[in-house]
C-alpha cells in the first residue's frame, strides 16, 4: 500500500492466546493503527486450557472473559461472536476485574503462532470462497453432488435428517445398480446360451 494517501485506521486479524500477534501489535501501536481481533476465543478451542482455567479461577471468571480481558489490557479491540443471549451478556462482563502483569505474561507465553483461519501469506481466495460457500450450505453441501436424476428440489425442500440419510444411501447405492442388473440377467443369458453352445460343439 505504498501508494496509499491515507493510513488505515484499523487492521482486523485473527488473534487469540495461541496467536498473540505480538509483533503486529507493536507495529500497530507504533504507527497508531488500531489492532482488532477476530475469533478472539479461537472458536471455542481454548475453554479447556489449563493455564487459562487457572487464571479464570483466580478471578471467578470464565476462560472467555479472561481472554477478552487480555485483549483489552493489550489495547486490542475485540469482537467475540455468540448467538446465545446469556453468552453475549457474559462475554461483555469483563469490566470489573484486572489481570495482573504476571497473568498477562502467562497468557502471552501461550503463543504458538497457531491459526484457525487461513494464513494471509498463503490463501487461495477462489478455493476459500468455494469452501466458504460450501460451509454456508452447511451439512447439506454434499447434496450438490447428487446426480441430476435424483429430485434435488424435493430433497432440498424437505432437508430433514431422514431425507439426507436417504439421499446419501441413494448415492452409495448407485454403483451397485449395474451389478444388480448383471446378477439378474447373467443366469438368464447363460441358460439361454447353453444349448446353442452345446449345439455348436457337436
Amino acid at each position, binding site marked *: 500500500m505504498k501508494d496509499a494517501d491515507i493510513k488505515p*485506521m484499523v487492521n*482486523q486479524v485473527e488473534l487469540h492466546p495461541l496467536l498473540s500477534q505480538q509483533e503486529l501489535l507493536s507495529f500497530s501501536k507504533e504507527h*497508531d493503527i488500531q489492532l482488532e481481533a477476530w475469533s478472539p476465543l479461537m472458536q471455542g478451542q481454548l475453554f479447556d486450557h489449563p493455564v487459562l482455567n487457572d487464571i479464570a479461577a483466580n478471578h471467578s471468571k470464565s476462560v472467555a472473559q479472561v481472554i477478552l480481558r487480555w485483549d483489552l489490557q493489550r489495547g486490542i*479491540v475485540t469482537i467475540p461472536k455468540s448467538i446465545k443471549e446469556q453468552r*453475549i*451478556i457474559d462475554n*461483555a462482563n*469483563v469490566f470489573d476485574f484486572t489481570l495482573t502483569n504476571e497473568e498477562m505474561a502467562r497468557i502471552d507465553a501461550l503463543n504458538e503462532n497457531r491459526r484457525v483461519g487461513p494464513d*494471509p501469506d498463503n490463501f487461495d*481466495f477462489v478455493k476459500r470462497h468455494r469452501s466458504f460457500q460450501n460451509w454456508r450450505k452447511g451439512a447439506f453441501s454434499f447434496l450438490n453432488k447428487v446426480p441430476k436424476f435424483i429430485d434435488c428440489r424435493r430433497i432440498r425442500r424437505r432437508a430433514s435428517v431422514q431425507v439426507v440419510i436417504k439421499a446419501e444411501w441413494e448415492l452409495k447405492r448407485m454403483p451397485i445398480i449395474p451389478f444388480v442388473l448383471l446378477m439378474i440377467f447373467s443366469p438368464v443369458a447363460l441358460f439361454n446360451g447353453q444349448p446353442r453352445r452345446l449345439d455348436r460343439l457337436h
Partner: protein
Amino acid sequence: MTINHLQSTTALHNGVQMPWFGLGVFKVEDGSEVVSSVKAAILNGYRSIDTAAIYGNETGVGQAISEALAETGLAREELFVTSKVWNADLGYESTIAAYEASLSKLGLEYLDLYLIHWPVKGKYKEAWRALETLYKEGRVKAIGVSNFKFITWKT
C-alpha cells in the same frame, strides 16, 4: 486509555471513537438467528457490530439494528457498524458498488468502518483507492484493512 465499561471507546488516528468491545457475526445465519443475536447485544449495552459482505447476513443485521434503535431510542450515531468488501469485489468501481450494496442490505446511510477483507495481491490497491474516495467524500467514518501482516503508506 480507560476501558471501564462496555461502551468505552478508543480514538482512531482520525479521531473517530470506536468501541473496544463489539459483537462479531461470522457464521451467524441470516434471518432470525442474526436478528436475535444482534438485538440481544444492543439491548444489553453493546454498541459495535462487525459483519462482512461474505457473511451473507447483512440484511438481518440491518433489520436488528433498526428494531433495536426503535426499542431503545438510541440514535444511529451511537452505534458503530463495520462491514468488509469481499475479495471478488476488489477493484475501484466494484468496491464502491460493493459498499453501496452493503449499505442497502444494512439499510444504513453510512458505515462507521469499512475494511478490505483479505489482502488479495494485485487487487487490494485499487480497492484501497476506492475506500479513500469513500472516506474523503465523507460516506464512511473510517477505513481499514483485515488480515494484513504489513502495512506501508505514503508519508
